[in-house]
């Protein structure tokens, strides 16, 4: 690890002003310290935000939930109301990492975790995300875990997380406080970016911005499912994951919110797919058309070609389960 100075933030204003002055926040640190040991990231200054008062889950006025940025993944997944009303979020969090990591990882930190692209982690290799302009070795290299949607010639890395995929399907929003003290809400689906020509920028946070909470909207109707496909049974990142919130009206689909992980630089949501399903009777043909729509622009890069067929099957399996008769509301 390269040397750095360490300071504990006394309050939010202290934290954001230090971050605006080029310091890096550390919360759980489970990803940041890993990257600092490898010198993929080498901040000069760390600001420890763990003692800030951001570790509570509370109900919002409209019946939703406000999850403080420092709430651990374990506490969020185990929270009684999350389990009862937003089961897709509990399931997604429990599908990620290990018990030890979930105890330390935070809600805000999880949103900010970096890609697990092998070339991003290997400082001997070019990587436009780590070192802008140096090139992308994944394009012609080992790219089993890489993106099939929304990638660019600069970067085909994926956002690796599970939690944000469920939050995207739930239409959650990220609460952000700037160094000027202004608070804004950004939908989770707009929080992460596509790589374009600037893959070094994972998300829309600006210098000095502090994530203070994630806001879940009031409970939604319908069945919630999180399906994750990975290379081993536990403790592995998704090759493809899917969060679904699907409501039936009799024998027709009343609404569908679908988000996908492991496919792109951000949790992927395609409203055209959802629009195609609403008002229709579930059928293999309908789900096949939904997969066609989702994957119309999909592109494989060699080792990840299988993800296109895999995603089609995951989509069809999850929609079949979500719409079958007797599906719990």
């Amino acid at each position: 690890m390269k040397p750095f100075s360490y300071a504990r933030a006394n309050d939010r204003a202290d934290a954001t002003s230090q971050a605006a002055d080029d310091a890096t926040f550390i919360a759980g640190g489970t990803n940041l310290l890993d990257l600092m040991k490898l010198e993929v990231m080498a901040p000069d200054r760390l600001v420890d935000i763990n003692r800030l008062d951001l570790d509570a889950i509370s109900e919002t006025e409209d019946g939703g939930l406000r999850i403080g940025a420092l709430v651990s993944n374990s506490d969020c997944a185990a929270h009684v109301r999350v389990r009862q009303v937003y089961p897709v979020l509990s399931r997604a969090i429990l599908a990620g990492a290990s018990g030890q990591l979930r105890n330390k990882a935070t809600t805000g930190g999880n949103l900010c975790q970096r890609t697990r692209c092998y070339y991003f982690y290997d400082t001997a290799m070019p990587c436009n995300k780590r070192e802008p302009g140096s090139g992308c070795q994944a394009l012609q290299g080992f790219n089993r875990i890489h993106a099939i949607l929304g990638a660019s010639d600069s970067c085909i890395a994926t956002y690796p997380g599970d939690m944000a995929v469920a939050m995207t399907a739930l239409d959650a929003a990220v609460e952000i406080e700037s160094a000027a003290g202004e608070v804004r809400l950004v939908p989770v689906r707009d929080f992460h970016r596509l790589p374009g020509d600037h893959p070094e920028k994972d998300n829309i946070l600006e210098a000095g911005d502090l994530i203070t909470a994630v806001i879940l909207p009031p409970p939604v109707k319908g069945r919630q499912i999180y399906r994750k496909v990975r290379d081993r049974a536990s403790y592995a990142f998704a090759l493809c994951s899917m969060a679904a919130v699907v409501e039936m009206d009799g024998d027709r689909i009343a609404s569908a919110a679908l988000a996908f992980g492991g496919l792109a630089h951000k949790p992927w949501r395609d409203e055209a797919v959802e629009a195609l399903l609403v008002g229709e009777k579930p059928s293999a043909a309908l789900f096949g058309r939904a997969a066609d729509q989702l994957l119309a622009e999909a592109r494989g890069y060699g080792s990840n070609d299988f993800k296109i067929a895999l995603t089609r099957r995951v989509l069809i399996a999850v929609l079949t389960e979500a719409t079958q008769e007797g599906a719990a509301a």
Partner: protein
Amino acid sequence: METTELTVNGKRHELEADSRVTLLDALRNHLGLTGTKKGCDHGQCGACTVIVEGRRINSCLTLACMHDGDEITTIEGLGEPGNLSDLQAAFVAHDGFQCGYCTPGQICSATAMIEEAKAGWPSFVSDDLAGPDALSDEEISERMSGNLCRCAAYPNIVNAIRQVAGGKS
């Protein structure tokens, strides 16, 4: 240099160390508590698992200076020869190891994991998010997936944990 007060296994220590020192290195190299092991040093193997403020964490992925005032339990604090914890005794009785390198992390992890299950926390394999009534072998394996054993003593590790957790096989 950072000054950090740590309470480890009930004993207070004042640590004077570089900001880069992980909790794992502080325990082993500064406080001489070498029961906690360094495996991968990247949070993938679980050999460094300790219990901080009642929660199991990877001590390699946290800085010592972030834990000023915290209470930490390591394998040395769970029991010692002649006065083993239930899990330590069960690992011996069930031969839950071969080389033993991952064992301190396995036992610290399992100690806290049993408390998580008692608190009703569900896991990825729980059918019902209300949490399981008892820890099946599948539940134990999933909840212990953050602890690798390169000797693959997994069947006996699960047997040892099941005995203490009182689960069904």
